[in-house]
């Protein structure tokens, strides 16, 4: 075997992908040729370095869970479109309240502030359709989205252009959280939908600022003047924080 052929076979030889006869010829050539032997040693050193020092990434622990949740949802029939929305809303609102261990108690009580983020998650889920999130006014232009609510809502929703941060404005919809009228401004980050719910809060009992995981979704809440906010998304927590910081920046 000559050097040209040896060089051509070197990688396959290192990878154990040559037949026995070729392997024997290679070994013989390497024994007698210091230049090729050196290249062979470098290849082996590179392999040792890669296999010893490069840490193989493992999947984040919650990834499997969120995949199984998504696959599990495939078995359920697709949600019918908007015609049946009001009873779904009622049903999901009710079941969320139950799940929140509030039982039937909440029906007889003034609205509990703690349950509003749960309503927000329920509404976030209810608005997800196979065609994308449900939208009343679809536009990536905030000067189109915001005026649409005039006369439809008792307050003006905060709509910001966050495309520079990677969050594309999709649109907005009128929504309800329990007995409150709310608006959801909808953004998209890659495959993730980010819903920003806002509603008129109470100055005496502002929504506590905080973040939580509710039914597998990341939620951040805060209060600003007489408006309360809840952001719901399936994007990870770091992305949500980045979003919230950008949305709240003045």
């Amino acid at each position, binding site marked *: 075997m000559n050097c040209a052929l040896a060089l051509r076979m070197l990688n396959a030889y290192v990878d154990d992908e040559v037949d026995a006869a070729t392997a024997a010829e290679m070994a013989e050539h390497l024994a007698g040729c210091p230049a090729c032997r050196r290249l062979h040693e470098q290849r082996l050193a*590179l392999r040792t*370095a890669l296999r010893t020092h490069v840490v*193989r990434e493992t*999947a984040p622990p919650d*990834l499997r869970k969120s*995949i199984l949740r*998504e696959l599990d949802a495939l078995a359920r029939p697709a949600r019918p479109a908007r015609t049946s929305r009001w009873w779904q809303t009622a049903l999901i609102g009710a079941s969320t309240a139950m799940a929140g261990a509030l039982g039937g108690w909440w029906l007889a009580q003034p609205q509990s502030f703690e349950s509003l983020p749960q309503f927000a998650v329920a509404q976030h889920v209810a608005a997800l359709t196979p065609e994308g999130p449900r939208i009343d006014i679809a536009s990536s232009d905030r000067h189109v989205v915001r005026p649409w609510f005039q006369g439809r809502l008792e307050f003006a929703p905060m709509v910001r252009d966050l495309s520079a941060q990677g969050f594309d404005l999709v649109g907005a919809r009128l929504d309800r959280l329990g007995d409150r009228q709310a608006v959801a401004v909808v953004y998209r980050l890659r*495959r993730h939908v980010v819903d920003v719910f806002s509603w008129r809060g109470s100055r005496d009992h502002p929504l506590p600022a905080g973040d939580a995981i509710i039914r597998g979704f990341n939620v951040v809440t805060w209060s600003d003047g007489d408006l309360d906010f809840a952001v719901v998304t399936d994007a990870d927590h770091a992305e949500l924080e980045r979003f919230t910081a950008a949305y709240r920046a003045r």
Partner: protein
Amino acid sequence: MTHGQRLARFEDEVLVNLDSAYSLARWITRDAGRARDAVQDACLRAFRAFDQMHGPNARGWFLAIVRNACLDQLRELRDHAAEVEYDDDLHGVAAGPESVAALTPEDFAERSSDARWLHACIEALPREYREVIVLRELEELSYKEISAIVDIPIGTVMSRLARGRDLLQQRMLFAHRRSRP
């Protein structure tokens, strides 16, 4: 088969390879969030196509789907920022292995134990070389398996591995020399 049975089989045969899938996605997309999205997307595609999967190599089958999901992610990204398309002829004509002969085994050993630096060297490789090197060296797959996943002939697997390793060694040598006063 009920949905539950199908899901259980999918977990046993496909989701056992989740770490391999995530690692590959991470190397191809070079971003944790995008890797996550790609793997999640790939799982949905794999689950829908699960009935059409034949043969014992569920891992290779799954990794091929993961790779495609990654490329879709990158394509989406490219809509915003133009990235140079890869061309085997154009990018494959870099210097041969002779040019790395100046790297002594001692130099090499000294630098190569720096894991972060090594990681950065691999990340800096063009994607076409990066993926075959990761599949070969970290997943320890055969040429035949890599050929099926990346959808290229075995001869191309061999030449990309050769070129990718040359580039990697060159980068390591270059960075090494530059780090000297």
